[in-house]
């Protein structure tokens, strides 16, 4: 294992003969996880410097207490002065989130274990957000929202984003939509804190420089009563992204590139820290996209250091005090990956795995039958803005396939209908979408990202004509068999630019075809 320290910007580490797009090798990663966690990747691609193994810091006293961001957050939350990866600690929870799918189960466990009349540990630290199966006639799904409502009334839960009138989402002033976006928009994500949620994409909140991860019903039931959870401190993988982001690349391309590089288990039990000038140039929603798919690499949590972009976003959203933390200069990372983003090309993840990476342009012969733009990953305001910008740049060509749009939250829906799109002469996203023939933006929720009840809008159901397969380009986060409904449906994960471009051609399409 090399013990070289990483000094200045690693221009010297990029093999010069590999520079240039043609050297990029997007062959799908092997699924097998390297047995030795510190093995060095043999694959060298033009956008990435050779993986660095663990750095050996100098053995001074201050170094012994050096910690990564994740270690610091967990140390503070467990009232320890120092933590190392592998330690099991009791951590105070700042926010517990649950939704309509896992909430009832968690509540059931809470009541069974703590008592039918037990009270939650803190009525202001639990945020309950119905979002998964909302606009459906499924009786059990509707009953589950009722269960949440009864519990919130009984416990006087402060933050319950309720919906009662399913026929008109706007008639529900409290209803938000997709939980991870709602948490951010309502100011529940704060630097330095610990946020747990009964959803794998809880890691999205790491974009705010906090520790955020998904837990199951039993753990959540425990937190409801105790306000604490036993967690093992993860080691950190560091991803350094530098270089100016090309204007056809979005955060979704960045994370698909990373997952393709390290595989769906490459970050299992680990923290993923995203730093570098490219990351600093991202707005909050793009940072959320980056952290959102950490779980697709098996990661425990993702973090982006808080900075002025973060503070500005939070200004009008929360008045609670917070204290950001940052990795020490000499903190130890398990591995470090360096990327020159200026060389990155638009990426897709082919069926049926998020690490089945390919260049969008290599898939240009793949005929598709639909496009889906939505979810916590790709249904935020910035995601719709990006899609709209591409449609404008194309000269308002008409889409060739059904293009489903599902804004993540009420606020996103409002933005889609009110914010002007740059370069369009003052048009809103909704006007542009209508002009090019997209479906009308739907009621905000998780929608078809995970299939759901059979009457879910845009769900991939049994194809009516055989042997026609269903092929979708989607801005969502997973494409395992059956993810969006029918088991044989094929899902290409992509950025909003790539999704919009594909809608215009009816094939998987590199957005540069329209943006350059």
């Amino acid at each position, binding site marked *: 294992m090399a013990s070289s320290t990483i000094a200045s910007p690693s221009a010297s580490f990029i093999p010069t003969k590999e520079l240039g797009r043609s050297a990029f090798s997007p062959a799908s990663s092997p699924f097998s996880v390297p047995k030795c966690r510190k093995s060095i990747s043999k694959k060298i691609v033009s956008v990435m410097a050779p993986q660095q193994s663990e750095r050996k810091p100098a053995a001074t006293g201050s170094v012994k207490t050096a910690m990564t961001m994740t270690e610091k957050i967990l140390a503070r939350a467990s009232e320890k002065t120092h933590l190392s990866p592998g330690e099991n600690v009791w951590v105070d929870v700042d926010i517990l989130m649950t939704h309509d799918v896992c909430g009832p189960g968690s509540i059931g466990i809470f009541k069974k274990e703590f008592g039918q009349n037990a*009270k939650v540990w803190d009525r202001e630290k639990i945020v309950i957000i119905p979002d998964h199966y909302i606009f459906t006639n499924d009786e059990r799904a509707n009953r589950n929202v009722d269960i949440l409502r009864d519990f919130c009334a009984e416990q006087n839960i402060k933050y319950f984003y309720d919906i009662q009138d399913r026929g008109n989402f706007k008639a529900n002033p409290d209803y938000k939509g997709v939980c991870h976006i709602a948490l951010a928009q309502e100011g529940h994500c704060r630097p330095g804190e610990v946020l747990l949620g009964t959803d794998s994409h809880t890691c999205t909140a790491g974009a705010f420089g906090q520790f955020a991860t998904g837990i199951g019903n039993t753990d959540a039931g425990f937190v409801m009563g105790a306000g604490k959870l036993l967690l093992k401190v993860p080691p950190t993988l560091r991803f350094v992204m530098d270089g100016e982001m090309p204007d056809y690349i979005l955060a979704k391309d960045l994370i698909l590139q990373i997952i393709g590089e390290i595989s769906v288990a490459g970050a299992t039990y680990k923290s993923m820290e995203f730093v570098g000038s490219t990351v600093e140039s991202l707005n909050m929603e793009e940072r959320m996209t980056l952290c959102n798919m950490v779980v697709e690499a098996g990661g425990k949590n993702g973090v982006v250091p808080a900075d002025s972009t973060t503070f500005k976003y939070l200004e009008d959203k929360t008045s609670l005090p917070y204290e950001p933390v940052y990795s020490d200069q000499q903190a130890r990372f398990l591995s470090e990956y360096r990327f020159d983003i200026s060389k990155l090309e638009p990426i897709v993840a082919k069926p049926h795995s998020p690490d089945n990476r390919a260049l969008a342009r290599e898939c240009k012969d793949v005929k598709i039958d639909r496009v889906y733009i939505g979810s916590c990953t790709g249904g935020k305001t910035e995601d719709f803005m990006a899609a709209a910008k591409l449609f404008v740049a194309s000269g308002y060509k008409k889409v060739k396939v059904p293009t489903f749009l599902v804004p993540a939250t009420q606020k996103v829906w409002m933005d889609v209908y009110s914010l002007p799109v740059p370069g369009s002469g003052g048009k809103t996203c909704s006007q542009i979408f209508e002009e090019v023939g997209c479906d009308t933006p739907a009621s905000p929720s998780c929608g078809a990202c995970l299939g759901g*009840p059979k009457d879910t809008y845009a769900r991939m159901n049994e194809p009516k004509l055989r042997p026609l397969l269903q092929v979708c380009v989607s801005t969502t986060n997973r494409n395992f068999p059956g993810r969006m409904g029918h088991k044989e449906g094929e899902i290409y994960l992509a950025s909003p630019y790539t999704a919009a471009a594909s809608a215009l051609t009816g094939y998987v399409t590199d957005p540069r075809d329209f943006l350059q």
Partner: protein
Amino acid sequence: MAVSYSSSLSSFAAAAFSETKASIAPASSQAVRFASISSARPFIAPLTSNSTVLRNRRASFVTPRAAAESHSSPTSFHGLCYVVGDNIDTDQIIPAEYLTLVPSNPAEYEKLGSYALIGLPASYEKRFIEPNETKTKYSIVIGGENFGCGSSREHAPVALGAAGVAAVVAQSYARIFFRNSVATGEVYPLESEVRVCEECRTGDVITIELGESRLINHTTGKEYKLQPIGDAGPVIEAGGIFAYARKTGMIPQSA
């Protein structure tokens, strides 16, 4: 059934969990008081080879050996295995459309079990549960890498347990699935050292000797070493994290 613990475990329980100081003070009088746990002690005591553990759970294929002495009397599982591949994600284990079923509701718990692994593609010709059945005849699932990846849904290990699975043997696990398996006590998430999924076929007769960390395939006559279940063992044995916490005196017996 009598359960006796190794000396290290019982002294750990006594010393660490005396209820002299509550580390949290919830508002309600109904709240559970937790003894404070010092940083140096792990939540779960190390499972020593001398501990005596008897299972008293529901799976029909579990055959606990008679506990003749105070030394080890390991649990064993015996039954048919069902073999799957790598990266079996939670959508294949329990598709999202069934997540409206609430696991803490007993009737819906059983229903969840009937849908276990229904999301596997058609290339799996032998189905995990026969149509018109609600339980599986395969008490052991054998997988490859990254079993249980995808969602944090606890419905995944619950569905397997409710269907009648006693143990999963995989090369590696996704972390939330592993954690949920232990917390619920629904299935033992065992790890193999080699690709057992390539050496076994669905329907092979298997014995797992938990205490010896050994898997025997009676149909092929081959044996494989497993990673010891370690700290997770007693938690699953007790029936999950709450039951374990009560058993070891971490929280009072429930009312």
